């Protein structure tokens, strides 16, 4: 493991000792494993990019093979110095913005890659060449400085998130962190913090993340956002979800936001809102469901099913709830049977949940069931607590009415 600051500006020589120039920057692939792909060498005349394959070793000086070639920047590549060092990044686990003081590189199986970044004071001291002195002084004062290290998986360069630095080709995993995960992290912090992060994301990403936040946060955000911005984000979210969010806002605000939606979207959302009058899901709520803890094994669950569901009329899914009674996952009986008896529930449960609220219109619930081919939907409250389920059987009565009456 080495620090980028330790090799920056080092002399670059060929294997037989001919000086090429100085190391100016490194280029890496912005992917899940950020492999270093090229060296940028500042020669007397110009800056050249040399593929990392020509690197022999990094000692006091950097040696490359003498028959090296130069190459231009390819897709999805970023510079360490220009795009990462000294720049702000989002520390996802802490949900805050921090500054990169140093970049940590790691060699593994003949490949160099970006292990992560140092955001601590020690990183600053190292850059200034004062790391040892600093540690000594602090040692006398009986203080210890820790390197605040964040791994690549934990960070998101702001410039990337904001779209200021564009990768050459639109990468599917441009935001290598799935929006669902970012949403989970964000839920653990305050609303104010969430508001701070959002302006940093581009609209599409923001929409995805918002769609995955729990309804409390969604409502909080849309109450504070400007109407125009709220509309532009809602535009990118599925209409079904939009209706769920809008129901929790005041009538005035709802109207205001609606007016800013595109005509098409507006029409769809307004229709869904109007069917609200046809009856709420609360009338169809069933308490006949099974909830298990995520730490149970498959064998445990099978036992529970045998013991507790003898009088059940219908058991399509098993819901996973945490100790706060919040719904965190779901699996079907089929999925359960496919697992080994010793597997834990949290390992195979589906975390991508399709849920509804007590206020959700019946029609909307039906739409969701048909769209996702689910025969029962869990009903949750604002805190994500599981209240009960609604089955397709119960709702089909409604469907029948609509078709034949």
């Amino acid at each position, binding site marked *: 493991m080495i620090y980028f600051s330790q090799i920056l500006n080092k002399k670059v020589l060929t294997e037989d000792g001919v000086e090429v120039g100085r190391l100016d920057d490194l280029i890496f692939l912005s992917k899940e494993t950020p492999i270093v792909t090229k060296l940028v060498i500042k020669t007397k005349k110009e800056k050249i990019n040399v593929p990392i394959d020509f690197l022999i070793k990094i000692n006091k000086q950097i040696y490359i093979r003498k028959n090296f070639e130069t190459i231009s920047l390819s897709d999805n590549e970023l510079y360490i110095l220009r795009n990462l060092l000294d*720049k*702000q990044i989002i520390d996802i686990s802490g949900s*805050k913005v*921090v*500054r990169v003081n140093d970049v940590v590189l790691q060699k593994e199986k003949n490949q160099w890659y970006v292990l992560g970044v140092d955001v601590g004071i020690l990183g600053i001291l190292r*850059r*200034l060449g004062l790391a040892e002195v600093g540690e000594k002084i602090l040692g006398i004062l009986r203080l210890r400085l820790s390197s605040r290290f964040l791994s690549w998986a934990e960070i998101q360069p702001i410039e990337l998130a904001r779209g200021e630095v564009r990768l050459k080709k639109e990468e599917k995993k441009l935001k290598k962190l799935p929006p669902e995960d970012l949403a989970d992290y964000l839920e653990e912090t305050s609303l104010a913090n969430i508001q701070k992060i959002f*302006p940093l994301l581009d609209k599409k990403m923001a929409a995805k993340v918002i769609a995955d936040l729990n309804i409390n946060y969604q409502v909080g955000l849309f109450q504070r956002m400007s109407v125009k911005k709220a509309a532009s984000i809602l535009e990118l979210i599925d209409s079904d979800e939009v209706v769920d969010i809008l129901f929790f806002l005041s009538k005035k605000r709802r109207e205001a936001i609606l007016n800013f939606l595109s005509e098409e979207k507006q029409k769809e959302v307004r229709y869904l809102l109007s069917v609200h009058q046809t009856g709420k899901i609360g009338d169809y709520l069933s308490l006949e469901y099974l909830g298990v803890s995520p730490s149970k094994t498959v064998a445990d669950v099978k036992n529970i099913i045998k013991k507790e569901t003898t009088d059940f009329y219908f058991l399509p899914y098993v819901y996973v709830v945490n100790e706060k009674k919040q719904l965190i996952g779901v699996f079907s009986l089929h999925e359960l049977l496919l697992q080994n008896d010793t597997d834990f529930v949290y390992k195979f449960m589906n975390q991508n949940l399709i849920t509804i609220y007590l206020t959700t219109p019946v029609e909307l619930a039906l739409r969701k069931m048909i769209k996702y081919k689910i025969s029962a939907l869990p009903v949750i409250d604002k805190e994500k607590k599981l209240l009960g389920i609604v089955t397709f059987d119960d709702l089909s009565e409604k469907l029948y009415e609509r078709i034949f009456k």
Partner: protein
Amino acid sequence: MIYQKNFMKEFLNKLKWRFLFFLSVLGPGIITAVADNDAGGIATYTVAAAMYGMASQFLVIPETLILAVTQEIGARIAIVTKKGLGDLIRERYGIGISLLIFILYFITNQGVVLQNVSGLKAAFQLFNVNWQLFLILTCFFLVFFVVFFDYKKLQRLFLVMVVFYISYIISAVLTKPNWIEAARESFIWPQKINIFDLTFWFSRIAVLGTTITAWGQFFVHSYIIDKKLDIRHLKYERLEVYLGAFITNFFSWMMSVAVTYALFVNGIKVTDGYTAALAIKPFAGEAAFLFFAIGLFAASILGLTIVPLATAYVFSEIFGYEGSLDSTFTKGKIFYGFFIAQILFGLLVALFPNTSLFKLTLYVDFLNGAMLPIIFYFLVKFSEDEEIMGKYVTSGFSRLLVRGSAIMISILVVLTFFGKILKLT
């Protein structure tokens, strides 16, 4: 007729909305510019006005323009990039240069904090109260407000302090000045003094030097970002910055009027704001004295809060910590810690009864003078960089104006310092 009425109504409505929008950006420009007239500034104005009368405000109109132009660059960069000056320096010039600048900046600001604590002390002495007790209480409350108030509430507090500056206007009126003469001396051509006197010019430049400060340039930048203004606000924020430049020089002009018609016409020389206030009493009466003291009080409070905040903002920007008035104490520990430490240090020094701050003022002015050219270099560089500013880049005539102003101020500030070394002021 009906058509016209509707038209008028519509026009007024539009105006009303524009005004409300303007109010929403109100703050950064005015607060920064007025805070530039802090305790140290008042000392310089009063000393100069007692020496040269209203001639000390000669060329105040072009001075206002320069101040407006330089503050506008900062405001524009802040709104366009949403990054502080500290952020930009760190990102563009790396850690070494950033650290160096921060150290210089920190020392300068600590000096300015000291000036303001002693200004506050002087104000309490003028009010004839137990100054030790009040000084400690005031500092305590300042820390309390900054830590526990959010941006909005604090800004209201700042704006209230700005209103207190009106006391200088009252104070000026009470000295029964000759307004026409005052305007002639400052706006057209001074006749009461020998304009070719070199020492006059040094004093005049010193007055300018206290109005345009290093921390002011950083602060307007960070403060706008903390206010979370976006590009829609740019037009109005510019207006607000210009208004701020006007107001601050209007206040200092009034201050100079008060001093001129109480002291200069009677040939009384003073050394600082404290002695000036005392000297005003026999000539302009108890009320004028009181209002002058209130002005000093407000100026010190404003300086004492804004300057350490300016340091804390830049620290957070350069080293990447949470730095916002909206953050809680636990989240912004380092940001608030920096603020508190500077005030505490200032308080401790001021509590020793015989600390002379004359030498210190000299060093502070020197550091300020040394920093300003560097800061203007960065400001001009960033504002002309298309990669940073996009279509809001400085170009054409305004480029000339910005560069010209920056260079002029840099030269003048450096001159001020040499003037002070040679004891010309």
